[in-house]
């Protein structure tokens, strides 16, 4: 660089890129791409169509393999289209290309004058008769039945389905002169193995969790249900993404109206794409009522199966390891999968702990601030003086202290989620040190408040459901402000309004606080559960087809023994 260059004028380097906004975007702009064409008879036309739809000149992973099929000793132009990385190459080579391309007995076989043995049901003997004259022209049938040794093969005529299947990992065969295409399942993309649940851990229970692939998930459900009445209906959601979803239910238990309503909602979603079950949850729930979760989201197959056997339905979304259980009530969000694996005494004890945690995490900071601001007489005298002493050197008002600590706690919690595990422990130590010791030593906060915030935080971790715990974290702030404004009056009003909102929510036609309110009959399992052998009836709020789930004496061995003794 020359010295004079220093004094040269250089225009400012302003790289300013803006996306021009579209004004007055309206619903009419929502033009969903629909493919209505069907498979052409001409090989060339099919090829051009596929090339244009998949932009094969640009897309690097779209593979179109052209070859000639040998069939009945004749050659036909064909091509195979698939997406590299999503298919199993060995499967395609060995079970699609090989039998189609290489000469073998199957593809050189000529059917004429060949007698076929067929079983005669009247005489109950094998009888041979001349083959059907029309079989000579049924090329598609011949290819379908004789040439492609693949377990999952279907004939498709509509390009919309074909393209969707190619996108999901199938390979499709087009043959000249045929107006159908062969949709071959050759999926071979890498996916996660069935692993332990990440969030819903249990000590004494199954350790399997859902994965991203919908078929694997449905297989998990099938294995556990082990009943032919399990229906897994496939629904595609998203006009562009055509995300595969599955509605699973047991048809002789689930209420027909519930299933109809679920199908109605799922089939009437007009969106471009659906990526996660969380998005689907927002699209199908009854209303965005005050940030309270209305649909249970779980990664455990056993929880889903238990729900289906109660009469609920499960929705799976391809690409997401979380299933949605509908309908869901408040007691479901406070229940842990462990509850059914423990004897009732332990389970009810844990449920009591969780209920206490629910109240503590929601109300403790608000109550603390209400009592210290308005109702100090509630404290025992010695505790009150301890609080006074603790607060003597603190310059901030209690509300500021509390909000500061709560926000810091939330920051640490969020930070902990995003840090790698190696740093996570350091974060915990630093956070605890900063929040706990240093803040108290510096007289920024009082030690009593640290205890309050810590207990509140611990209680929030006890809540088994992530979404439910999240909503409690938000409402806690509301109760804190109410308690600060007008003490127990504010808390009381908050409790009433919160309870009324909970009572007004419905989840797929079921009141959120069922079976507590409305209290229809005595057959529902309330929050605390009886022993398993006493759970004779299904929850009445689900209105399942089969109300009775156990006989009156489910332990027949005991009854027979008792009866035998009495004789």
């Amino acid at each position, binding site marked *: 660089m020359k010295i004079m260059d220093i004094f040269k004028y250089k225009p400012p380097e302003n790289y300013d890129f803006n996306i021009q906004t579209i004004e007055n975007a309206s619903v009419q702009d929502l033009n969903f791409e629909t493919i209505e064409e069907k498979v052409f008879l001409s090989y060339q036309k099919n090829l051009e169509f596929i090339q244009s739809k998949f932009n094969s000149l640009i897309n690097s992973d779209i593979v179109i393999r052209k070859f000639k099929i040998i069939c009945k000793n004749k050659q036909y132009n064909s091509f195979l289209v698939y997406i590299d990385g999503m298919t199993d190459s060995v499967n395609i080579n060995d079970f699609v290309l090989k039998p189609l391309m290489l000469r073998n007995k199957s593809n050189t076989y000529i059917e004429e004058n060949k007698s076929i043995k067929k079983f005669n049901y009247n005489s109950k003997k094998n009888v041979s008769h001349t083959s059907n004259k029309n079989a000579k022209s049924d090329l598609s049938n011949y290819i379908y039945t004789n040439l492609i040794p693949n377990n999952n093969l279907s004939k498709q005529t509509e390009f919309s389905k074909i393209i969707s299947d190619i996108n999901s990992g199938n390979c499709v065969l087009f043959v000249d002169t045929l107006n159908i295409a062969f949709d071959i399942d050759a999926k071979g993309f890498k996916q996660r193995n069935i692993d332990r649940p990440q969030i819903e851990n249990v000590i004494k229970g199954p350790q399997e969790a859902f994965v991203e692939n919908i078929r694997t998930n449905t297989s998990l459900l099938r294995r556990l249900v082990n009943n032919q009445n399990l229906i897994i209906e496939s629904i595609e959601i998203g006009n562009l993404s055509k995300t595969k979803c599955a509605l699973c239910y047991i048809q002789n238990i689930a209420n027909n109206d519930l299933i109809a309503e679920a199908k109605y909602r799922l089939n009437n979603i007009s969106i471009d794409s659906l990526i996660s079950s969380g998005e689907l949850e927002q699209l199908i729930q009854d209303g965005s009522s005050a940030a309270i979760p209305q649909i249970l989201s779980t990664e455990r197959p056993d929880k889903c199966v238990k729900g289906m056997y109660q009469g609920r339905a499960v929705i799976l979304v391809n690409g997401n390891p979380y299933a949605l259980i509908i309908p869901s009530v408040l007691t479901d969000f406070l229940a842990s999968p462990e509850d059914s694996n423990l004897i009732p005494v332990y389970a009810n004890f844990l449920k009591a702990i969780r209920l206490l945690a629910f109240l503590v995490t929601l109300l403790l900071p608000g109550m603390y601030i209400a009592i210290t601001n308005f109702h100090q007489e509630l404290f025992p005298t010695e505790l009150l003086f301890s609080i006074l002493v603790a607060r003597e050197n603190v310059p901030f008002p209690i509300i500021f202290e509390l909000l500061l600590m709560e926000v810091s706690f939330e920051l640490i919690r969020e930070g902990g989620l995003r840090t790698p595990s190696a740093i996570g422990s350091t974060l915990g130590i630093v956070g605890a040190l900063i929040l706990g010791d240093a803040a108290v030593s510096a007289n920024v906060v009082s030690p009593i408040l640290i205890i309050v915030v810590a207990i509140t935080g611990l209680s929030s971790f006890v809540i088994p459901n992530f979404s439910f715990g999240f909503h409690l974290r938000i409402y806690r702030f509301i109760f804190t402000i109410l308690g600060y404004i007008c003490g127990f009056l504010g808390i009381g009003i908050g409790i*009433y309004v919160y*309870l*009324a909102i909970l009572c*007004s929510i419905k989840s797929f036609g079921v009141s959120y606080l069922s079976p507590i309110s409305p209290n229809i009959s005595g057959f529902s399992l309330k929050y605390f559960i009886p022993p398993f052998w006493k759970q004779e009836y299904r929850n009445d709020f689900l209105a399942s087809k089969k109300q009775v789930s156990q006989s009156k004496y489910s332990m027949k061995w005991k009854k027979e023994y008792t009866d035998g003794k009495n004789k």
Partner: protein
Amino acid sequence: MEKINNKEAISLPISCSLGITVLVSSQIIASHCLSSSLINTGYISILALVLTFIICKLYKRFIGISFLDITEFLGGKILKFLVGITFLFYFTFTASIVLCKTVNCLQIVYYPMTHPNYTVLLFAITAGIACNLKNNGFLRATFILVPIVIIAIIFIFVGNLKNFNYENIFPIMGNGWNTTFLEGSTNLFTFGGITYILFLPQNLKRPDKFMSVSIISTIISSALLTFITATIILMFNRNVTSGQLFPLYIAVRYIEFGTFFQRLDSAFLLILNIAICSFLGIYANLCLEIIKEISSISDTKPISFPFVLLLYACTILIDAKFELEFMQNQFLKVFFFVILTLGLAILILANLKKSLKGEIRNE
């Protein structure tokens, strides 16, 4: 309004009666009847049961039909409108009086520096929110909250057992037969739930269970009234009614379990605040239903907040212009009897008309 189940329906008249009993009538009964308060309580409980039974019997011919429709059957739209306005006036003022009493008490105890209008506004907004919720949310909330309030009242009774002086019920006839039975029958206004029962059948999922629902709710209300009156009478020798605070609150201040559980009155006020919110929600919703029936409004949501503003205005009016004691002692008592008489008269006349003319035409 969505139809409600039996158990929820039982909790509604109880909530209506509780608000009046705790804040207004217990004080009045204790001050007028003195040592014969418990006898008076038993007497008015029997009267209430009889009245409830009569109302249920009169409703047998009009299963599932609303009270105002019966009025229309009797005297046309004009009578329906007039009766509706009367009941609306009664419910609004009852709610205002109870709210006024609550706010006065809260102001003395906890908010001496705050103008009571703000506290009233807070309650009014809560009532408005309750009316705006779907699916009878506030009704279901009442069903959950009423048992908690009942437990609190029983706890106050049990917690004060050691402070009770059982001889306070003597002399047994108090100020005489006249005060206990004749004048004492005016204390029937404590059963505000009876006026709510008039509007209950149309909202029941099973209208044939109306009688059992009404009787059970009246019995529970009587039991609660007995507990509250017993607590006041057995605890205090002196006349506690001249004070601004309602006697049950003063009784709570005496509860002590060791040195840790003391001064539970703020905890009691927390529960009472929730009970008052529930009470206001029920009354506000009832008033909106009446407005809906006498006018041609299809949805009451747009008028819910204007109505609670009206409730707010009434409460401020009572606080500012009228003597609260006059309102609760005279106005409420007299008006209750007017309403009850009107309700019974309409039902009796409608029954007579029906038996003379035949089937009611559904309008």
